[in-house]
């Protein structure tokens, strides 16, 4: 077991690489998911605040035929 952690004398270089990889990937996942949740919450709040008052563009404006 000690031999495994020792990595033939290269413990610092090997374990630093794996630790850095773990930290970078964990930070990416955390930040991406947190940002997504924040945007969903903001959209829900805005939709609720509008309370259906958000006016859809009229058919004439959007160029859509009835």
């Amino acid at each position: 077991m000690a031999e495994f952690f020792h990595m033939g004398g290269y413990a610092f270089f090997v374990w630093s690489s794996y630790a850095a990889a773990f930290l970078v990937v964990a930070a990416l996942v955390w930040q991406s998911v947190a940002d997504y949740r924040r945007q969903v919450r903001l959209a829900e709040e805005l939709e609720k605040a509008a309370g259906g008052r958000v006016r859809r563009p009229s058919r004439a404006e959007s160029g859509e035929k009835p």
Partner: protein
Amino acid sequence: MADMNRISAAQRFHAYANPARFMALSARLLAPLWGLSLLVVGAGLWFALFDSPPDYQQGETVRIMYVHVPAAWLAMFGYSVMAVASAAGLVFRHPLSDLCAKSAAPIGAAFTFLALLTGSLWGKPMWGTWWEWDARMTSVLILFFLYLGYIALWATIEEPARAARAAAVLALVGAINIPIIRYSVVWWNTLHQPASVFRMDGPTIAPAMLLPLALMGIGLTLLFVALLLVRMRAEVMRRRVRNLRLAQAASAGEA
């Protein structure tokens, strides 16, 4: 009459139907993607750390390869996704392609950083130096700065359509760097070793080392795709938030 109907259908396709379909599809794909990437990376880590031999020249430091090479591969893959999506955004004006390019950038930048860092941690014990201005390392450092420039450009331009166009042009100009990175070890006399996996004459790496490398590569690529989807979903929602705020400001102005 028929023409007008077709135009409105096309508009709806761009403005609504496609992001909605993307949201539905990505929601279904995400759970299996997270699970599968965790599984494959886990298996890769097992072989990388416990069940693969030390190198006859590099000893145990060869285990750095199993994070360094996939990180470098994803650094280039991320930029390729960004460049292709940028080109599609410029040509087809499809809103999702802009969002895809924007979402790929921070993931690619993170893996480029990881490739540089682990390369440095591998270079010190094996080459005796943390850094050398050879063609491979310099071109990857340029890749990192291209990512940062691209992200900064998106952050500086307020209007999304204009930001997308400017960033897309930068991404496409910078794409010239990708073949330079790939062939830097062939064209120049570099300290960095040449390719040993993706070669015309097949891999020259030992099978016992190829297995953990392939697992880590595939697993982290799956993770990349999952991250890309989450970030694209966040961008779709960000656009929705922006539109809601604009509508709110407009109706406040009317009152």
